[in-house]
């Protein structure tokens, strides 16, 4: 993991520059996907380690890093589903009731829909970019966002009935 066998262009200084410029944003993204600050930081740290040891020729390391983070976060989210069944819930965020309600609903969505919604409404990504990041078709990305939003809307309505 800490191997020094890596292309020259991924120098320590470049990775460190990326770390300083991208880390906070990536932790935020991972946090929104996983729902856990601690896990999000682990994911980002792991992603930087993977980037640093990558032997791939990278034309856009930042973009590549973002994709690593997203994949790692999705894996972490799936693992967390198992943990959730057996561990007490991690204390949540101090949010206004209205926002907290939405956060809880988002937390209950299937993984793909949650990720698609985060990419669309937090990162303002295009459907084509969402599709690329999630490794699916553009129509699928559009569908995931549509269904996720529809599900949130319906559950909001049910909560207030």
């Amino acid at each position, binding site marked *: *993991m*800490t191997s020094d066998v890596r292309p020259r262009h991924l120098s*320590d200084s470049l*990775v*460190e520059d990326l*770390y*300083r410029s991208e*880390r*906070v944003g990536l*932790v935020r*993204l991972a*946090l*929104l996907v996983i729902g856990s*600050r*601690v896990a*999000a*930081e*682990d*994911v980002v*740290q*792991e992603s*930087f380690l993977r980037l*640093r040891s990558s032997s791939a020729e990278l034309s856009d390391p930042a973009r590549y890093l973002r994709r690593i983070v997203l994949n*790692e976060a999705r*894996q*972490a989210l799936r*693992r967390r589903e*198992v*943990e959730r069944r*057996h*561990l007490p819930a*991690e*204390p949540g*965020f101090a*949010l*206004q009731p209205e*926002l907290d309600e*939405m*956060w809880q609903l988002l937390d209950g969505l*299937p993984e793909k829909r949650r990720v698609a*919604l985060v990419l669309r*409404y*937090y990162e303002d990504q295009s459907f084509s970019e969402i599709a690329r990041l999630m490794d*699916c*078709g553009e*129509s*699928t990305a*559009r*569908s995931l966002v*549509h*269904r996720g*939003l*529809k*599900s*949130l*809307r*319906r*559950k*909001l*309505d049910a909560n207030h009935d």
Partner: protein
Amino acid sequence: MPTMIETEDRLRHTLDAVASSVRESDEVTPDFTGAAVPMATPPAHRRKGDSRRRSPSFVFGAGFLVVLLFGSIGILISGLEPAGESDRAADSAVAGTVPPPTEVTGPSTTTPPAEQTATSEFWALTLAGMVDTVSQRDHFGPDVPEPEALVTESWKTGEPFGTGGSMMATVVTADGQLTIAAEYVGRGEAIDESALQAEVADLTAEGTAEHIDTIWHSRDTETALRGEGERAEFLLTEHGSGSTQVTVLTALGRLVVEVDATDPAVLFDTNQLMGIATRMSGTSLDLTWNPDHPLSVEVVPLPEPAADDWLVLDDDLWVAWVAEDEDDRLWVKSDVQDPISAPSTDTRSIHAFAGSQFVVIVVGDPVPEVIIVTWDDGSRESVEPTWNTDLDMGFARFDIGGRELVSVEGP
């Protein structure tokens, strides 16, 4: 109900609010030594006394797989740990006194130590998830358990067939005691039935079980039913001497089939049962299934989505509506002769019979270019599905023509 725009706005505000909890001032000095980097300010929600240094998730994940595999085999060999031990494992994991992960050397078939590694913590949690039913064993007592308590859930990990998962065999003894052996199989690996058989034999020799009625092998059944693309969950509700009751979740609702299985070695013909499940998608049931085995059938309809949730899939060529209910099940309706509605959970296709037509509703990811059906007369037909790109759903229609459907490929 809030509008879509209102929902979008609330979602944006919520995401921004949560993201803003990670402040720029939380930035830390780069450290690529492999360990997680301590934050400048410890998060307020970290549990008191939780001094774990989180290991990289790749170690965590790889360790989890290895330990899970060997741990499960260990359980298979030595018999399951008592339910209370599973619970204690999870409890001690919560307590969170965790030494470095390098201490993980393999499976444990005894009570996990108070101090666990991060990997064994997860292993314990996962096993606890895999053996939920076992944890109920203490509650069974000497009496024959209620049917609900005997429900065997396979594939607890939620992974689709063929990529690994857990299998459980249920053994009901003559006095009503229940023993369950669990095995985890990795991707592409076959379940070792002989090991299971040996396990049961050991239990018998130990006197744990006075008499073994049968072993139920979940995998073949899962294969058959999942192969139809239905979300047909096979739940074993009772295995007694002389009768077997099986519940299948099919397109129209729960199908409860009671089968006379006087020979415990021959439980039921899964293909024939699959045939019933398939027919359940249509407008009628074939109740003449296997006259040598008396059966009764009960259909419990599932609740449908509200009327205003239905979306028109295509009203130019043929009318079908698609909707999702509160459990994210997809439903489809058609107005071809006999209206149908069929839910499907987490599948990429819904098969539905409507009058003389057989309809395949497909959901994207990946998008199939063609759907191929094979009929019982050996003929095959292929149709390119019609797509609604907004919904990422499409459908293909086939005339039944008095034939029986054998298989559907493509979605």
